């Protein structure tokens, strides 16, 4: 049994997501890395139904999945999976497509990306609510879909991951139209 001294704020923290690891050492190292980069996290024992690898996990704010995942990969920190504590374990991967005259809107979860089917220019991004979405909106709108970075490269949140899903589908549709 391992004990960790927690501050009151850490003890209260409930982020709704877990990073799972193969070993206890990896979990402790990842917790330090995330904390050093300003993420609010805490070491926890994963519930039995989610347990994979070792019996220590890092609880994160699941909304920050995109940023956490990118940071851990950049730092070569090994982890098995990032999961929500409740509900379905996988991100929604279904997309819906709506066609307008000369434009196509791709919806993924709460995010919608609309592009010009002739030029590939991103006309609008709508939906979502996390703080990286207005930032990504400014960075992407009125630019060609083939010339902007994927949202998950610059976004931090689950809304950015949903926008990334819509972006990938939109790019695929545009590339097919071009052929």
């Amino acid at each position, binding site marked *: 049994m391992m004990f960790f001294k927690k501050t009151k704020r850490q003890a209260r923290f409930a982020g709704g997501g877990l990073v799972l690891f193969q070993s206890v050492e990896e979990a402790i190292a990842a917790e330090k890395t995330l904390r050093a980069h300003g993420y609010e996290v805490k070491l926890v024992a994963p519930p039995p139904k989610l347990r994979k690898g070792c019996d220590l996990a890092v609880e994160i704010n699941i909304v920050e999945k995109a940023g956490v995942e990118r940071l851990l990969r950049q730092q070569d920190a090994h982890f098995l999976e990032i999961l929500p504590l409740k509900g*379905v374990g996988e991100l929604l991967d279904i997309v819906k497509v709506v066609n307008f005259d000369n434009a196509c809107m791709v919806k993924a*979860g709460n995010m919608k990306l609309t592009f010009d089917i002739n030029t590939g220019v991103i006309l609008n991004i*709508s939906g*979502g609510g996390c*703080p990286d979405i*207005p930032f990504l909106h400014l960075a992407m709108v009125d630019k060609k879909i083939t010339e902007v970075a994927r949202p998950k490269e610059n976004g931090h949140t689950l809304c950015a991951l949903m926008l990334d899903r819509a972006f990938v589908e939109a790019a695929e549709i545009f590339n097919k139209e071009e052929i």
Partner: protein
Amino acid sequence: MLLICGTIPQAGASLVMGEVSFDGSRLAVGNTEIPCTQGTAALASAACVVAKHCGSAAPHAVFAGDTGSGKGSRLLYDYLSNNLPQLSPDILLMHYILPVMGLMKQVCAAADKCGKKPVMMADASSMYAAKAAGLAGQFDIFTPDLSEMEFLADPDAIHPAYISRHLFRADIACADDLIAAAFRQKSMAKTVVIKGATDHVIQEGKVKFTLSEPDLPALEAIGGTGDTISGMIGAFVDAGLTHLDAAMKALKANRKAGQLVQAKPATKVREIIAAIPRALNHN
């Protein structure tokens, strides 16, 4: 006082606060100019337009720079938790912010300490945080779109990215089922305004109003057209309208503005906002 709180896409996690002004193209909080983009800036711009139309006081705002790291969001949560009782706004309208359940609980606790509890409104990720933290019942008005309504209807989802597939397959024809499910599990605010192909206003789980004309499918594609509705509702409530009347007027004005600019998928929200004064005079 209508107090609008949210993040703006500026690097550097500092707070900007003060009276909001909007001259039809330039948005400012105090002396700080804010780019009028999709998100909280669009919401605040639309709120200013309605306040001017109604002859009521300009809204106030607390904005935090945040491009996704969450630092600005945390500053904003902390500011509200520490200062809401002194500010005691009539309406607290919370918008873009990193959803952090524990911090949203602190904001709600601070709102309870106001001399008179503000009308509590949440849109975008403030609504996600309120639902995920089990605080929906403490809010007076939510303004989801259909995908966010699916999130409210999912008992376990902590964010719309994790809703069940069968719910995402739903369309507006299933709105009644989503409303019933969300109401059953207490994920609804007292008034819920669903923005979509058919707009719905729900009170205590019952549909009080629907609107589907003029039919403008392109509005869904235009980033910020839901934000404008939320801002207008907040300002109409501040002007003294009932929550139902405020929602109905905002929904009508938004569609009318879209019709006036002949909204297309490439239309920008600033064009919609510029048409709201004319749209309000049509209502």
